[in-house]
């Protein structure tokens, strides 16, 4: 049996679990070592080490009333709970609690799609609904709406939105928290609230108008621990008539400035509707020793880089995006894109895919770049790319936010390359991605392993990347549970006033400190004081 949570005796823990069994039945209270081990973080950067976070038990309710009753028992016993939705937030901590010894509140069984309104283009779901679930439901019922899926299709609409994940389709949909409309939350006291128009039971616009009346409070339930979200509404994208995926390259390193500026402009005026990526086929190349030397030097000139690009015969920058809409609109958009970017000498335009919707099941299955069309997959989860290759085991997402400017993209490539070099590591590929309307995420993957030695190296790398990028103004927007204290520490204006505000809210909303202690470094008072 796992140890009881910190602060509870074995007897208190047993009594609390007995009460939870009365609420949801013995089958849904997991407390054997074997069952609780399934709540480990499969990609933990601390796998098998003393600091790895473990659950003490897990409970899996199926109704909102059960969640309320569980939370009330948790208050009574001061039992720390850690809610998860589908539990697949891998690379950010998965289903393991931040505060070791917490009881995982596994909401996977709450997997009902409560409403899909084709005319309003909205849905209302429970936390256990995955992108696969919603996609299959829409196709089975011939509903011509798209979800915007995260890369892993096993992720949940609610969990991903609450951690502020992103996808690939239209700007109104791919910022998943921004695409939500209305929430239902079990507060840490057990009280049930609905936000926005949902605070009036007769309102017909819960999933249509976000604000309702009074302070708009939804934001505090993302990347936080102020309640258990049991329902969320989302806006869905109307299936377009057609789509065209394109790839555009420019040849020289210094072209990045005009390239990113024009792409940003085309996104701002809504010519380009989709997530738009900018990457370097040259700097993201193979493990060629000369490439590694240039990247880890952290500051080779444009002239040096351009000579290298010539030697490997690759264009320096590439961008991929999708135009959605009526075919004649797409044709006009594509013409305008070519007019604007045609100002860059040597630019090459390629149409890589065209689709007319709806797709048959076979056609949808054959789409290679699925997420750009609202089709969930697990295509990024391959373990090997070559015969005999040692399989990969996991990774951490390191994704600092930068301005969409060529100088910042180059600056980030240079800085991260230097850090890898100083640690004796081969630099990771990096991709600038415009998930959001104005800022660019620069995605890197830092590998994790099932052995401590390699993980120690990855943690040291990750911490340096976070810290030194922040010193240049490039902050991460989301971070693995183990590093959330580090992640929040860089948001330090006025001696960490924002963090103090978070904990002021925590004390007011969760006075017994029972929900997700430590998530995004928000600790309840008794653990703050105890750990000081």
């Amino acid at each position, binding site marked *: 049996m796992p140890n009881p949570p910190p602060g509870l005796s074995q007897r208190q823990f047993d009594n609390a679990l007995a009460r939870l069994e009365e609420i949801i039945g013995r089958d849904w209270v997991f407390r054997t070592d074997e069952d609780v081990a399934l709540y480990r973080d499969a990609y933990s950067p601390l796998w098998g080490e003393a600091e790895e976070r473990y659950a003490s038990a897990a409970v899996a309710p199926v109704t*909102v009333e059960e969640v309320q009753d569980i939370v009330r028992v948790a208050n009574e016993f001061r039992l720390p709970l850690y809610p998860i939705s589908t539990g697949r937030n891998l690379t950010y901590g998965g289903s393991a609690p931040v505060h070791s010894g917490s009881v995982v509140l596994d909401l996977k069984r709450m997997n009902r799609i409560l409403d899909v309104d084709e005319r309003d283009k909205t849905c209302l779901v429970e936390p256990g609904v995955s992108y696969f679930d919603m996609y299959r439901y829409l196709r089975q019922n011939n509903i011509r709406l798209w979800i915007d899926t995260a890369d892993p299709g096993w992720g949940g609409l609610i969990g991903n939105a609450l951690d502020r994940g992103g996808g690939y389709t239209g700007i109104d949909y791919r910022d998943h928290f921004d695409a939500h409309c209305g929430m239902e939350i079990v507060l840490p006291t057990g009280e049930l609230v609905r936000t926005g128009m949902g605070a009036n039971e007769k309102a017909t616009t819960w999933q249509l108008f976000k604000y309702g009346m009074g302070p708009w409070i939804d934001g505090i339930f993302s990347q936080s621990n102020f309640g258990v979200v049991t329902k969320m509404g989302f806006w869905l994208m109307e299936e377009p008539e057609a789509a065209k995926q394109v790839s555009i390259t420019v040849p020289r390193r210094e072209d990045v400035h005009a390239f990113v500026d024009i792409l940003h402009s085309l996104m701002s005026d809504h010519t380009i509707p989709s997530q738009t990526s900018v990457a370097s086929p040259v700097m993201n190349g193979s493990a060629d020793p000369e490439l590694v030397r240039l990247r880890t030097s952290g500051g080779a000139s444009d002239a040096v880089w351009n000579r290298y690009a010539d030697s490997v015969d690759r264009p320096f920058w590439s961008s991929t995006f999708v135009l959605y809409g009526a075919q004649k609109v797409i044709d006009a958009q594509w013409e305008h894109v070519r007019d604007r970017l045609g100002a860059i000498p040597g630019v090459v335009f390629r149409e890589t895919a065209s689709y007319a919707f709806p797709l048959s099941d076979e056609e949808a299955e054959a789409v290679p770049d699925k997420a750009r069309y609202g089709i969930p997959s697990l295509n990024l989860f391959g373990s090997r*790319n070559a015969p005999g290759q040692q399989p990969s085991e996991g990774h951490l997402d390191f994704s600092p936010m930068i301005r969409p400017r060529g100088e910042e993209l180059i600056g980030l490539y240079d800085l991260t390359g230097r850090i890898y070099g100083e640690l004796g590591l081969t630099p990771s590929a990096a991709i600038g991605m415009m998930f959001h309307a104005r800022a660019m995420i620069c995605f890197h993957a830092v590998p994790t392993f099932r052995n401590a030695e390699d993980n120690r190296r990855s943690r040291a790398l990750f911490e340096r990347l976070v810290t030194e990028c922040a010193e240049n103004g490039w902050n991460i927007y989301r971070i693995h549970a183990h590093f959330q204290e580090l992640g929040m520490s860089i948001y330090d204006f006025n001696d960490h006033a924002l963090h103090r505000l978070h904990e002021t809210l925590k004390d007011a909303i969760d006075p017994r400190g029972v929900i997700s202690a430590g998530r995004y470094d928000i600790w309840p008072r008794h653990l703050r004081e105890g750990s000081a």
Partner: protein
Amino acid sequence: MRPSIALAALIASVPASAQDETPPIAAWSRTAAVSETAGTLSERGAAVFNNWCDACHRNAEQNAPGTRSLELKYRGELPAPLEDRTDLTPALIELYVRNGVATMPFYRKTEISDEDLAALSAYLADD
């Protein structure tokens, strides 16, 4: 190879929660559903495979990262698609589902219940 009727049965049989008046309109991943469905154990296992394994392990040239990875691992010594394997035992299937391997994570019992796992084993091991 994968009877679609089993998946339809899995969906149709999901009961509404007794404590909530709103009936579910979809519950593809409802746990313990296998024990509530008709059909043979192997047919139920096909539904479990479709729901949880197919996105990685389908028998396809593309969009099947698990199949691709096993193809690179076995290099023709064993079939890469799991549904084509004849050497899978229930113990081996349980080992991978409950422990994971490489980038494949382990599955919780709220995702693949013990009943679902038994059905999956019947489906894959009986082929």
